[in-house]
């Protein structure tokens, strides 16, 4: 794992209920899980991530697999919690209005902070323009580092369907970029902040 500890030891300790192992897993997986929920426009991404990890920790004794399998399993739970949250709120997720707590990301150089802020806001805006399924596929592939098959399993779809969603999502992103270039001109790239 990223902490340098053998995954099998951490998993065995976590399955036995050791707090330190929970901490290791949480620090390793929580940023991407919380980011996934936040970029999906979850109203309370931190609470939703907490519910996800409580479910993960209490269900760990029944888990078996390697680190990739654990990551896929955690994001499967997070995705289902997100769907349940959408259904519970009975409304379409509000994406891009809440770019998250930027104060946590900022600090130090003012110019860099501004660029990060703009970049984060740009990412949220691009994600908000994507349909839910396309956004899920792209975010699960980017943040969770899941394969096509793992994404299909997490979303309850076929692999072919996931491939199609990814293709359409990437096309939508390119279309947004091209439209923005046409509006502001070729010299001022609208997503220049993403390239830094």
């Amino acid at each position, binding site marked *: 794992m990223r902490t340098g500890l053998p995954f099998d030891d951490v998993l065995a300790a976590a399955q036995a*209920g050791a707090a330190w*192992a929970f901490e290791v897993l949480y620090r390793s997986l929580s940023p991407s899980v*919380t*980011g996934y929920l936040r970029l999906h426009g979850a109203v309370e991404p931190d609470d939703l991530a907490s519910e996800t990890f409580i479910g993960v920790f209490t269900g760990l004794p029944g888990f078996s697999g390697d680190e990739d399998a654990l990551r896929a399993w955690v994001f499967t739970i997070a995705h289902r919690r997100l769907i349940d949250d959408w259904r519970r709120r009975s409304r379409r997720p509000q994406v891009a209005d809440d770019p998250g707590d930027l104060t946590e*990301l900022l600090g130090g150089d003012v110019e860099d902070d501004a660029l990060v802020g703009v970049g984060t806001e740009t990412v949220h805006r691009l994600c908000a323009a994507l349909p839910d399924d396309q956004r899920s596929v792209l975010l699960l592939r980017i943040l969770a580092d899941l394969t096509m098959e793992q994404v299909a399993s997490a979303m309850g779809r076929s692999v072919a369907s996931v491939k199609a969603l990814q293709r359409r999502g990437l096309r939508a992103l390119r279309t947004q970029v091209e439209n923005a270039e046409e509006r502001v001109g070729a010299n001022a790239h609208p997503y220049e902040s993403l*390239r830094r």
Partner: protein
Amino acid sequence: MTTAADDTTDEAAFEAFLAGRPLPEEADGGTSAVAAFAGAVRATATLPGRPNAALADLLASGLLTDQSSPSTRTAPSAGSSPRRSRVRRRRRFAMFFPALLAKLLSAGAVAQAATGAGVVLVAFTGAGATGVLGDNVQDTLSTVVGAADETTDDVTTPDETLTADETTTDPGEVEVPEVVTEVTVEAEFTPEEWAANGPVEGQKFSDWVHAAFPDGKADGQVVSHWARLKHVDLEEVDGIEDVEGIDDSDTNQPTAEVEAETEDAGEDSRGNGNGHGGHGNGNGNGNGRGHN
């Protein structure tokens, strides 16, 4: 406008980014933007979220010390409650008697002892049920019977507790040896019965006399009476001389009066015999149902 070739290029660039490879050379500005988007997404997810109270407690203490709500699967192994130990004792107590009964029934030589113990137990419980016993004994009996009834409430059947390697057989399948309880207890001698019954069939007259009166204090009148009835010459009976009040006259010539007494005595004898038979134990239970 996005073409099919652009889609393929974007997908290749996207996969290359995910795999950590450099972007394809044919990537244009749009493709670069897609890859840049992926990088920016990862950059926004670098900090863990704020755990809520429940998760914070879990991260702080884990699940090792949380015994507040043990599951139904782990709860029984947490310890032995007083009720559990009581139930275990009841089960041992309950399985003891069926096993003992089965072993006794399967042992033919001990069957008589088992029957005798059963008779004693039935008699004792019967007396206890009627309250004939003393207060102390009655209280003890009530306690034992109450405990036995209590053990039958929530205990398992003996079949569940007996292991396969135990040689105890199922009591329900044991062929119970037929025990004939011949009551050969010699009746306590009473002069009335002796006088009324006289010598039994096949019994020597002298044996009858001496068996009844080993000390030689037989009633001479009774002996004479039965000697006349049996047509026995008392002079030929050994040891009869010690009997007091014997009348050996006319023993071979019964009179009409004697004949009449004989008939009465015979009836009396039969009457006494039937009377003793009436002392049998009346243990029949009235479970009969009326039939239409």
